[in-house]
């Protein structure tokens, strides 16, 4: 095993006739923040459930901390802090009861940190879970995921459906976790501004496949939006090497292309076209173009 916290190779998974994951290879390096992006139904949650060992690998392999999470769940889960998308916690319990219950699973549970987080999140530990607001419930889940200071924090759509104040708590927790040496965060999100702020690396999942995986920096640098003016009018976009998306009409066509700039200029010249406009792309643009183009 290299220094990968999560090492997934050629993982495929079907549910009935649905191909949920197809030949997914993904390596999450130790330290830093890994962002998993994709539309609803792209396979993000299924992938996360494989990491947690709640799904076994039908084909391919999944290793977390070098271990098989299905075969050694205690060793793996004891080092992961997880917050699920649904944030399902037993409503009949009081916050303190849930904390006490959860703490028994984790040798590294830190009661001092729990106290700190209760204060920070303004939670009253005597309250019953079912009486909490959605945001308070999310804070409880976040607390439970953080309290044993996990080596790997896994957050599945952590801020979906939450107001900006609680989103801030969650994002700050991600920053704090990664700022502590060697800790790794894996989070899935369809809120791409969050991913752009926080991730070191990203993987884009589409229809069960990883169609893009790289450091955020090189992703942002390797895509360009260029507008070309051709020497004659076209009714469909002329083929441009490396283009993943195109739109326009007549003499001017705008492409989203992947590649370094000198090569783009050469390609443009060979098509008798001039680059008349150029702009950087946000992660959101890149996401949409990749989905649109695939």
């Amino acid at each position, binding site marked *: 095993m290299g220094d990968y916290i999560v090492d997934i190779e050629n993982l495929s998974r079907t549910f009935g006739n649905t191909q949920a994951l197809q030949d997914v290879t993904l390596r999450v390096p130790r330290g830093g923040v890994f962002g998993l992006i994709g539309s609803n139904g792209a396979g993000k949650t299924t992938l996360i459930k494989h990491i947690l060992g709640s799904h076994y690998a039908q084909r391919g392999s999944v290793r977390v901390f070098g271990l098989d999470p299905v075969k050694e769940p205690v060793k793996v889960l004891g080092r992961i802090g997880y917050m699920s998308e649904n944030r399902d916690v037993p409503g009949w319990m009081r916050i303190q009861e849930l904390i006490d219950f959860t703490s028994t699973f984790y040798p590294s549970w830190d009661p001092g940190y729990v106290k700190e987080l209760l204060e920070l999140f303004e939670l009253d530990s005597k309250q019953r879970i079912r009486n909490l607001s959605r945001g308070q419930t999310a804070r409880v889940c976040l607390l439970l995921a953080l309290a044993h200071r996990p080596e790997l924090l896994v957050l599945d759509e952590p801020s979906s459906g939450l107001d900006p104040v609680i989103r801030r708590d969650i994002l700050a927790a991600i920053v704090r976790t990664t700022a502590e040496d060697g800790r790794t965060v894996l989070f899935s999100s369809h809120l791409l501004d969050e991913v*752009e702020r926080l991730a070191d690396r990203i993987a884009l999942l589409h229809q069960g496949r990883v169609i893009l995986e790289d450091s955020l920096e090189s992703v942002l640098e390797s895509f360009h939006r260029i507008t070309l003016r051709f020497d004659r009018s076209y009714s469909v976009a002329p083929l441009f090497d490396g283009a993943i998306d195109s739109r326009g009409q007549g003499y001017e066509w705008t492409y989203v292309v992947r590649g370094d700039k000198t090569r783009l200029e050469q390609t443009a010249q060979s098509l008798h076209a001039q680059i008349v406009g150029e702009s950087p792309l*946000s992660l959101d*643009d890149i996401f949409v173009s990749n989905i649109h183009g695939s």
Partner: protein
Amino acid sequence: MQIHIQAQGGVPIYLQVMQQIKYLVASGRLKPGEELPSIRVLAEQLLVNPNTIARAYRELESAGVVEKRRTAGTYIADTGSPLARKERLKLLKQQIDGLLVEAFQMGFELDEVLKLVQQSEILSETSKKG
């Protein structure tokens, strides 16, 4: 220190941090010798990856805008250095380019713009003060 980050703008976040700190220095809102927040504190405040802030600080350091001191803090460098002046010039040139593009788009000629610059109210205010 007031910094606003806009993800989704197409401008890399480290660059936004750099540009805004440069602007704060150039406009005198950050003074030479002033300490910048630690990487972790600023990362949490702006909700961005700490590596991004680290990169911005590193590049500001090589541009001579800030300096690291033995106490591990990051401080605004003495702006008297030629590098800092070069940076300030670069910032100013960007602003001038923006102004000219705008002016030409609105149909003004260069000499009209120059005249307007000389007649600016800000100039009459500073000469009154002086």
